[in-house]
């Protein structure tokens, strides 16, 4: 009789066992989590069978944090401590945040804005991580195991700070990000794989707070993004706000000619924060009602026990939001130009995002392209479904007939500030990622030993019109005459669309140091602090968490190395193989203990000891790809 095999804790007995990976759509209004189960993607529901989790986080007076519908129910009664549409503040400073005319009290903080709540000042990253934690729990309950990782979607037009903030939120929620995936690209995957679509696809994605357009070329299992454009501050929320502004003017709460009705009503005290929230909630309801009928009544009780009651016809709604719709079409036109195609070249047009349910939006898209757009996959769910498919693929569950390649781009040009406040573009928008580009600069004055480097993102020529991403200082340049130094600044954008910059003085061979200070976003120290605060302050808990993180890393590297050896062990000589095996054995042994540092050392040793193996494996992958071609060409 065979003995039962019991594996050591943490070490999976079968390296190829299915890894649990999910796709998460972290939306402005609603968030979803989806997974591929028995080869079909499905959106995971909570215990009440709800798939959409309202992206609302409430900080209660009992120190409880609630997320979702329960939190949304408190939104009107407790507007300052109930955070809605937090995505609009991700990676943003206080000036951007104030532009949204919300009732929040903001704190200016270096980097990102903070929202004042009774639980203290909260960064948008922390608030988002509460939403992600709920989705993670839902997924782990539903799939019955610990998550290996997640693909998290972001608007294609998100800049570097917004992407980094999203990744930080995932880290804070204890989720390993397999990839940040652009929302329209995720939708294209869902449509492409569902319908077997080929050719040019235009994705029109109007969400709660962001707008994206992507032009893709689909052919033989390759999803290639040709161009992307958008507006990361335009979405369904803006249509709601227009209704609120209209109601304030109609009721005479503000002068009809007032350019900023909400701001002036709030500052005049004629509108409380709770009233504004109540009117916003009612505005959304009215907007949604007008997608199905041509007339609704805007009806909202106010805190002074009066009430606003106004009939709102679809025609009127369309008129007060016409400029928002035409802004989307302007972006579409510009994106098609970047893609070098005409409206008639688009094979199919796909609608994504709840806000595309508005008849005026649909009509505008249909009239621009001269044909109705596709919306046969639920526009609220299609992004999560595409993300789940990609997550399943990335986690190593690819197989014959279930395989594709995604080639995405960066949405905004990256550049450096040069003399006179002008921008020198280094990586142009719509470059396929990953991408690297370098440029040489020189000194301006004799004997100059330091150089300030300012990294910006955007399309405009003036630094002041672009978004500041980071400021660097390159120090220790040997004194030379002006123009003699050769400073090479290198940009690398990875597959998540995240940028890293390095600078180095070339002519002297002196490697100068680079100091990074993010202008927006959070520093690593801030993230570490938040991680600690989110757990009990007891040092025992902190140690336990550090140990757990190190164990996860050990398991991942162990498994990755084992899988690599299964396939490519012949790339190592016998003695090399023996060294790797002994490093693996040491990792396995320390992993069983509780010495965090010992595990870290064993992980580092294995990582260093397999560098040459990694390099040979990459060479083999390259040779195989190229050899395959040679045979093709002979045929």
């Amino acid at each position, binding site marked *: 009789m065979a003995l039962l095999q019991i594996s050591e804790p943490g070490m999976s007995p079968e390296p190829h066992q299915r890894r649990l990976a999910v796709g998460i759509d972290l939306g402005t209004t609603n968030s979803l989590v989806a997974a591929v189960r028995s080869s079909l993607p499905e959106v995971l529901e909570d215990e009440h069978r709800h798939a959409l989790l309202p992206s609302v986080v409430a900080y209660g007076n009992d120190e409880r944090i609630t997320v979702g519908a329960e939190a949304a129910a408190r939104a009107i009664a407790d507007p300052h401590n109930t955070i809605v549409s937090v995505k609009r503040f991700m990676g943003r400073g206080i000036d951007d945040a104030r532009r949204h005319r919300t009732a929040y009290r903001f704190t200016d903080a270096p980097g990102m804005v903070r929202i004042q709540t009774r639980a203290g000042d909260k960064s948008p990253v922390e608030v988002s991580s509460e939403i992600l934690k709920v989705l993670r729990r839902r997924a782990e309950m539903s799939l019955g195991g610990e998550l290996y990782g997640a693909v998290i979607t972001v608007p294609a037009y998100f800049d570097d700070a917004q992407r980094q903030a999203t990744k930080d939120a995932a880290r804070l929620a204890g989720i390993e990000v397999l*990839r940040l995936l652009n929302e329209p690209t995720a939708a294209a995957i869902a449509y492409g794989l569902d319908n077997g679509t080929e050719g040019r696809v235009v994705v029109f994605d109007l969400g709660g707070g962001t707008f994206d357009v992507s032009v893709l070329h689909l052919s033989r299992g390759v999803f290639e993004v040709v161009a992307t454009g958008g507006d990361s501050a335009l979405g369904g929320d803006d249509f709601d706000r227009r209704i609120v502004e209209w109601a304030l003017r109609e009721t005479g709460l503000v002068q009809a000619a007032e350019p900023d009705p909400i701001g002036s009503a709030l500052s005049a005290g004629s509108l409380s924060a709770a009233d504004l929230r109540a009117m916003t909630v009612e505005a959304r309801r009215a907007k949604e009602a007008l997608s199905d009928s041509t007339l609704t009544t805007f009806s909202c009780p106010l805190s002074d026990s009066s009430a606003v009651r106004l009939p709102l016809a679809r025609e009127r709604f369309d008129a007060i939001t016409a400029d928002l719709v035409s802004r989307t079409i302007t972006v579409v036109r510009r994106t098609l130009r970047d893609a070098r195609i005409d409206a008639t070249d688009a094979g199919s047009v796909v609608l994504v995002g709840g806000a595309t349910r508005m008849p005026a939006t649909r009509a505008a898209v249909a009239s621009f392209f001269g044909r109705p757009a596709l919306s046969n996959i639920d526009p609220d769910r299609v992004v999560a479904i595409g993300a789940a498919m990609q997550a399943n693929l*990335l986690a190593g569950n690819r197989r014959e007939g279930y395989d594709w*390649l995604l080639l995405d781009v960066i949405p905004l040009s990256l550049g450096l500030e040069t003399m006179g406040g002008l921008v020198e573009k280094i990586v142009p928008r719509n470059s396929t990622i990953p991408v690297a580009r370098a440029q040489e600069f020189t000194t301006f004055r004799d004997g100059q030993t330091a150089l300030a480097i300012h990294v910006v993102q955007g399309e405009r020529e003036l630094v002041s019109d672009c978004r500041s991403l980071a400021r660097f200082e390159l120090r220790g340049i040997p004194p030379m005459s002006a123009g003699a130094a050769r400073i090479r600044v290198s940009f690398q954008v990875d*597959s998540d669309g995240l940028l890293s910059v390095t600078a180095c003085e070339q002519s002297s061979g002196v490697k100068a140091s680079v100091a990074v200070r993010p202008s927006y976003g959070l520093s690593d120290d801030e993230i570490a602090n938040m991680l600690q605060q989110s757990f009990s302050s007891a040092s025992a808990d902190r140690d336990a968490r550090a140990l757990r993180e190190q164990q996860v890393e050990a398991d991942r590297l162990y498994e990755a190395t084992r899988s690599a050896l299964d396939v490519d062990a012949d790339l190592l000589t016998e003695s090399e193989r023996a060294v790797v095996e002994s490093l693996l054995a040491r990792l396995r042994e320390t992993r069983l203990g509780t010495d965090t540092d010992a595990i870290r050392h064993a992980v580092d040793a294995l990582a260093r000891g397999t560098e040459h193996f*990694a390099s040979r494996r990459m060479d083999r992958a*390259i040779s195989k790809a*190229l050899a395959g*071609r040679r045979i093709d060409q002979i045929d």
Partner: protein
Amino acid sequence: MLLLDKNYFDLLQLPRAFSVDERALEGAYRDLVAAVHPDRFVTDSPEQRRLAMQAATLANEAWRCLRDPASRAAYLCRLEGVSVDSAARAGASAAFLSEQMAWREALDEARLDANRLMLESLQQEVRAARDKAVRDVADLIDARGDFEAAARRVGQLMYIDRFSEQVDEALDDLS
């Protein structure tokens, strides 16, 4: 890594020439990037993932450089030790400059008058000049191997490309 010391033509296993078989170029790029893309190495070690990013970055750069005629030609010149920048500075011919001046005036005038017909005829003229420049570059590189002369013509081609974009934008702004 194998890729790092190869020029882009060797990397994609194409003959080192200005004239390329576009389908072969695209096919070679697709095969290479599919094999090395970071998406294929998500569950691998951090070092393996870093190498994948490096290799895919290189594949993307090769594809970007070779797919566009002007940058492909500039790259071929550079492989021969001829810089397009300095060639362009040294050799701007008077005839080319006066043609540029005339184009620019026409563009400004058409923009000011929102004259679509004028812009469209300018667009045609610029496209014809571009096609001619591409043919000249092909001849200078592939038939004559005259990289100095080719670099001067490539500088002009790049100029025409930039101007052509401005004409297209002006036309878009009218719609």
